[in-house]
């Protein structure tokens, strides 16, 4: 049960949110793309081990989409930010409370 900081509502339990995978994949101009470029937009999203900027929507709260840095190894939560705002820099790999000695 992650504790996710909704930029509008504050910290809430994960079950109030839905996941939206990698953040910042803009809808491309479809008609100028080759099939494989279009397929990439359709199906490929980042899946790194470590920090991932990803999308969440607070569906059972304010209903707003936002982006979040989260570490896929430690589940540490980094800064949240609104769509179309500057992405905060990738957090240092300090590890979550559990792992930071």
């Amino acid at each position, binding site marked *: 049960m992650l504790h996710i900081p909704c930029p509008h509502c504050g910290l809430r339990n994960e079950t109030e949110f*839905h996941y939206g995978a990698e953040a910042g994949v803009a809808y491309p101009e*479809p008609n100028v793309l080759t099939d494989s470029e*279009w397929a990439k937009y359709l199906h490929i999203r980042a899946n790194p081990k470590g920090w991932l900027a990803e999308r969440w*929507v607070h569906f059972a709260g304010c*209903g707003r*989409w936002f982006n979040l840095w989260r570490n896929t190894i430690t589940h540490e*939560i980094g800064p949240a930010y609104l*769509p179309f705002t500057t992405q905060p820099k990738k957090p240092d790999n300090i590890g979550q*409370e559990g792992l930071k*000695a």
Partner: protein
Amino acid sequence: MSEISFSFDDKIYKGHQGEPMVAALLRSGMLSITTSTYHGRPRAVVGLGVEEPNALVQLVSGTKESMLPATVIEVADGLAARSLTGVGALPELPEEARYDKTNRYVDTLVIGAGLAGLKAADEHLRAGREVLLIDDQPKPGGHLRHLGLELPASLRDVLAHKSLTYLCRCTAVGLYDQNYIVAIERRSDHLGNSAPANRARIRVWHIRADQVVLAPGAFQRPLIFSNNDRPGIMLSHAAATYVAVHGVQIFKRAVVATVDNQGYRDALRLHHAGVQVQAIYDARPVAEGSSVDAARATGIPIRFRATVLDTVSDAEGVCESVIIQDLDTNETFQITADLLAISGGWTPIVDLATHIGIKPKWSEAHAAFLVNHSTDRLRTHGMLAGDFGGDDNPSIFFGPELDEEQSRHAYIDLQRDTTLHDLRRAVGAGLNSIEHIKRYTTIGTAHDQGKTSGMLTIGALCQLNGVAQGGKPGLSPADVGTLSFRPPYIPVPFAALAGRERGPLSDPIRITSLHQWHVEAGAIFEDVGQWKRPWYFPKPGECMEDAVRRECVAARQGVAMMDASTLGKIEIQGTDAAVFLDRIYTNMFSTLPEGQCRYGLMCKTDGIVFDDGVTTLLGKNHFLMTTTTGGAARVLAWLEEWLQTEWPDLKVYCTSVTEHISTIALVGPKSRQLLQELVKDIDLSNATFPFMHSREAMIDDIPVRIARISFSGELAFEINVTWGYARHIWERLWAMGRPYDLTAYGTETMHVLRAEKGYIIVGQDTDGTQTPYDLNMSWIVSKKKEFIGKRSFQLPYLKAAGRLQLVGLLSDNGDEVIPEGAYTTELNAHPDEHGKTRHTGFVTSSYYSPALGRAFALALVADGLNRMGEVVAVPFGKKVLRATICDAVFIDKENIRRD
């Protein structure tokens, strides 16, 4: 403490209310309480609490739960239990106990109410923080309780602090990300017969803490030697506690084998309680400390560099004497003892910390894995952090060297009956990871999850590698690492975790405002997502088929009425609403005139049909979209996602109004006449109120919105009204409709009617692989604009020839309803050499049509639109039907009836 009686394996025992069951059993001389799971050897209690590997019982009273260690069962009047040999039983009797769950946010959660935990709680309270203190024992004090000591006054004050909540019998079972802790509180078992019936037996706590303090203490560990499983061999701390605190007097002569000073402390307690401690055998070369001095002072013989090698039993398999080995000379001798108390060092309870990935660190000085952790969010205290109290000095010793024969009886995991021999075999088989060894030997997989055996396994591995490399440990436990611990820390009943989410509460039930009417009318319901929808309305004596035929006939010939309120409804407003819908739907909505409705289809980016429904332009920049019943939430989420994350420049606002507006579909040639009787303010005639138009009107001073939408091809009106008025309108229609023989119908009839007209249900006539073209709906794909999914229609496979296309299907035998889901094949198709038969498509919807007087079906058939009139085979079960491909519209292709 009040005297109570309880039963164990049919015999009645006396005990003190609240004491551990094993204590009462031991006091009465009941030592061997079970036989081991695989080897059938007699076994007795070894430990003090949840680490107990042997003494598993099943309750025969109360909940009849099984696989409980008798060390943690508090005796109460009426308690009855039976012994188990490692296999539990599930009673079939219905569970009557209640279980509940609660959530708590706290500043500080302290896990463990021993000295370390209480001190930590005190500090946090002084810092002005609110503290939740949980402990799995019935009373606070941790080790103090085992020593029979009272809490110091200062710590009693801590417990009385107004900002402290203390939960006893509450075990933290899992530590999760961001300081989320799950704890299990046992609330009534200890009360036996006097437990209030309405009290939740177990409460599951979901705790989110700003700071977590882990002070769970440690388990004492045994040693590996031959025949180390005999009744009478116990952890020294447990033995001393049962004897000194619980008045167990069955042991006369004890031998203590130790690797640390704890053995001395326990020897002293045994000695003072009247047990003759014949000697302390200490694996270390020397020992210092106050406890050693005190033991010396009592005259207990102490021998260094000596340990237990083997034991000898009486006829019952109970320990009778002990074989001691001098670790320098390897000489052995035998000494009688009915109690062999073992102190093999401490194993701090690292389990919770490892749940979130903390790696315990091996400490040579403590001969233990520790978690010494101190961040703003998580701290460890007490033994877990290495605070062993200053008088311990353990050596890293897990047992003497054993030959092959001895190793066969040197148990590592008592519950699983796994021995040093098994472990050596695993290593011999080429395994060197502790995880492999665990899996090969099953060590650590029983109810206790290796609480005592885990560290022995690590020790034995180190020893083995030492042997291989000439006697000196070649591996340190630091190299081996710990077994992985996973939640829960102790076994938890399924029922506790299910809580109250059972039966009707297991998933929300959604009902419409007309639900009660349907119930009263005797409707049979079907589950559509979380909704309960009337499936059909049987009259007395009618079967489903009868009812559906009657309902269909009414809709096509008279007038019938359905509750369509579960349709998803989304209000879409804003200056860019039309632009937005143009992008969402495959067809155009910006051209829709006010007061008119249009059917729309939406695709995902991959070009696959995703939902459909009718959208109405209610007023300027104000649409009302309807979606499928199951798709409502998905579609709203879809719209919001695009608006918020791609097109924030669009001024559009979406609101779900599904449960604000009830929808009643009034269908049939007589629907206009009937409705006009109730609607006085507008003219319902086709000329003034054409198809796919929407009008505001009043029924009995209640504002309604009426739309000429038809999901059956019949003349039909959808009456939309505020949720709370729906029953009034429905009943008014019902009453007025009596002369028309107005008939209520359910989803089954709706399906027949819509399928007769070739209208699809997304999810039934599609399976997540259809484009609009496949559904013969090229007319709905706008060439003039961009919309979501359009690009994907250009992908090779989506425009390939031979795709499955929606067609009608008529079986040769009109009485035969083809099963839905059945496949079509070529007429003379046969299984190939692999037993496979090529198919050409499948039936999506199939019904008997009273209007057609025969069965009919919709199907997705390869290249179907180009194969009209062809005959296909439909094999299913042992049958093969012949059917002819035809247009998917069976009724009123000219759209005459709807007006």
